[in-house]
């Protein structure tokens, strides 16, 4: 197990290194001068040169890449060119929104999706199943930002139960921060829950057809006992894989709903930085986003190995 862990961790590190190189060198060839953008259209050449030197833009790319990598290790990502604040701080600051949002949606979608999927599988072919799966089809087809828009109109603008957007830091007012995240989390989670419910149902229906469920029933268990005791855990395995993949979509989703709810998340940080040509921030933020996806996939793999005894001695991932 430890060996497997180390090997997978090396894989994660390699993936991140390649991702870092890709992001850095792609963005490095960009046109556009951050200094010019910061100082505006009437800035003089001397001020521009002064700022460029201050930002380290006059060094060769490979050296700057090395510096960036070192920075990634030590947590010192340098200063934002446009916002004049330490990048690591900016990113950490945004994470207090993006992480709870993504993970909250992951948890909520699991809490909604899995029980509904199990329910539908147990009532396969009955009206409850058909109704739920119909809803799930709609849930999958709804663009999440559009759904978010509807939520805002109903719960914020009309009913005024919840704020239509914005964010208060946790440290300042935890309950307000929580409140601010309710609608975005729902907007993200429900379409995901629809997907999970479908996957869970399909998987459980598949498992229910398998021989060991019949064996369990031959022991004297009722149908639903057999499904709960033997089916659900087995059915969760493929669902776990999907959840790992879904996380990538959740990360993408947070970037989109941040826009609807004007939340200061990583997506917003990235977009602001792009329009300011603040590549220092863009590359670090992108790498953090990619890193999140990679790490979650790694965790899912790990969980999979923990849940499924068959994988413990798997040779290569």
């Amino acid at each position: 197990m430890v060996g497997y862990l180390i090997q997978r961790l090396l894989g994660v590190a390699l993936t991140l290194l390649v991702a870092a190189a890709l992001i850095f060198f792609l963005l490095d060839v960009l046109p556009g001068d951050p200094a010019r953008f910061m100082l505006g259209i009437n800035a003089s050449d001397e001020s521009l040169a002064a700022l460029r030197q201050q930002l380290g833009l006059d060094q060769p790319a490979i050296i700057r890449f090395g510096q960036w990598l070192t920075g990634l290790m030590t947590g010192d990502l340098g200063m934002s060119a446009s916002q004049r604040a330490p990048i690591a701080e900016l990113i950490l600051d945004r994470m207090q929104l993006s992480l709870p949002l993504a993970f909250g949606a992951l948890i909520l979608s699991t809490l909604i999706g899995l029980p509904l999927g199990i329910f539908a599988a147990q009532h396969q072919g009955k009206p409850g199943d058909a109704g739920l799966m119909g809803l799930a089809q709609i849930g999958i087809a709804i663009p999440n930002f559009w759904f978010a828009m509807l939520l805002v109109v109903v719960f914020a603008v009309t009913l005024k139960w919840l704020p239509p957007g914005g964010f208060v830091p946790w440290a300042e007012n935890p309950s307000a921060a929580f409140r601010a995240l309710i609608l975005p989390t729902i907007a993200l989670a429900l379409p995901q829950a629809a997907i999970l419910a479908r996957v869970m149902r399909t998987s459980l229906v598949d498992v229910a057809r398998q021989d060991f469920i019949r064996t369990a029933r031959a022991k004297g268990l009722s149908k639903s006992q057999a499904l709960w005791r033997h089916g659900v855990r087995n059915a969760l395995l493929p669902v776990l894989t999907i959840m790992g993949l879904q996380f990538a979509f959740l990360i993408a989703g947070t970037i989109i709903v941040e826009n609807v709810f004007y939340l200061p998340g990583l997506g917003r940080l990235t977009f602001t930085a792009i329009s300011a040509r603040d590549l220092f921030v863009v590359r670090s933020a992108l790498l953090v986003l990619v890193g999140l996806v990679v790490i979650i996939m790694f965790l899912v793999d790990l969980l999979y190995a923990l849940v499924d005894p068959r994988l413990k001695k798997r040779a290569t991932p």
Partner: protein
Amino acid sequence: MKNSALHLAGLMAATLFSSTALADELRLGLVLEPPHLDPTAGAAAAIDEVVYANLFEGLTRIDQNGAVRASLATDWAISDDGTRYEFTLKEGVTFHDGTSFDAEDVKFSLDRARAEDSVNAQKGIFAPITKVEVLAPNKIAIEIANPQGNFLFNLGRGDAVIVAPESAETNQTNPVGTGPFTFVDWQQGSKVILEKNPDYVGDDVYLDRAIFTFISDPNAAQNAMLAGELDGFANFPAPETLEIFEADPRFNVVVGSTEGETILATNNKAEPFNDLRVRQAIAHVIDRQAIIDGAMFGYGTPIGTHFAPHHPYYVDLLDTYPRDIERAKALLAEAGYADGFKATLKLPPPTYARRGGQILAAQLREIGIDLELINVEWAQWLEDVFTNKDYDLTIVSHVEPFDIGIYANPDYYFQYDNKAFQDLIATLNVVTDDAEREKLAQDAQRLLSEDAVNGYLFQLAKTGVWDARLSGMWPNSPVEGNDLTQVKWAE
């Protein structure tokens, strides 16, 4: 299951109801978040929109009508030749960090702004200064090379505010000024919080606390207002939604004007726009009202030249080239483009450009000019259009006050090189007599209009939306900023 869901909803409604504003708190929405908070080290208007007149003060200040008023300088005298200014400073003033304010701070600020390594975005303002001299702790003299018609106005702009040597370097994240509000917190990506300065020397402000919240998405802005999360937007980002607010008695919609001349900027050196007849043809075909209606939902004042209509020197030149398709076609034919031609139109992000561009393209198609619309981000616009002049046409709003002088620079991105115009501006810059200045400015306006240097579209409106119980908000913005000193809630 269903019951518990209802119960949960009820619970949320009971415990999590949205907060309402404190009595003397103002929550103002801004479209763009400032990159930092030092107005002397950046061009972004968003900086001034937070700090101008609230956190930082200059020697002079601009009032809501665009007039120059006393600020840190209570009084001044100008020498007869117009090259030496002597200011008397307000006494007892301290910076927010407790350090005292005197003439040395003024000298430091101005010298810093005009220094070689200065990163001030408006270095031009300080270029004429030859000498800054401390006469006494409360007296300072500034000498300039030539007389400047709008020197006092310029000193009242955000770029010329007075900072303290102790805090100048950290103003970007922790701004320390002399204004009636002090800086409390900046939640990156979200908001900036200011509080009343108890030690302020001068008229007390009414508000105890001001929160600037950054919302770039027009729809989110609208929702935030409707849900009561914000008290107002000094300049609401989406004119199309104003009718909702106009119909709602909770809100006041105040339409003022800005210093933003929105123009179809034209590369006067690029084929075929170097031909006056082509530019005239375009001028003949532009339907300004249709653009204002379509892109800005009717908010905006048509302009015939590069000048703000609310300015006393403004001349109405809307009819220099009245809309006349036949005439436009004839001019094109004369210029050798009877079948029209293809060109590009680069559009920066704001709505006026993106939507206006589509309408303009539809209009120019009437005379056979086929525009390829290219959307660009600001940085790319600055690089391609502004710096490298690699463009045919673009739509942009020039938001600096009294900036007709840019046409005198042949290297400016319009690439307009007219000796007569350059002479006019040179004279205007040194003349101080008002009547004479007016005549020169009007001549300059006419010349631009007749040369059809650019397509002149409209003056950007300032569409303010705020709580009907608020007073003291500026309807116009003669200078970049949101002056909150007079803002108060109705009893």
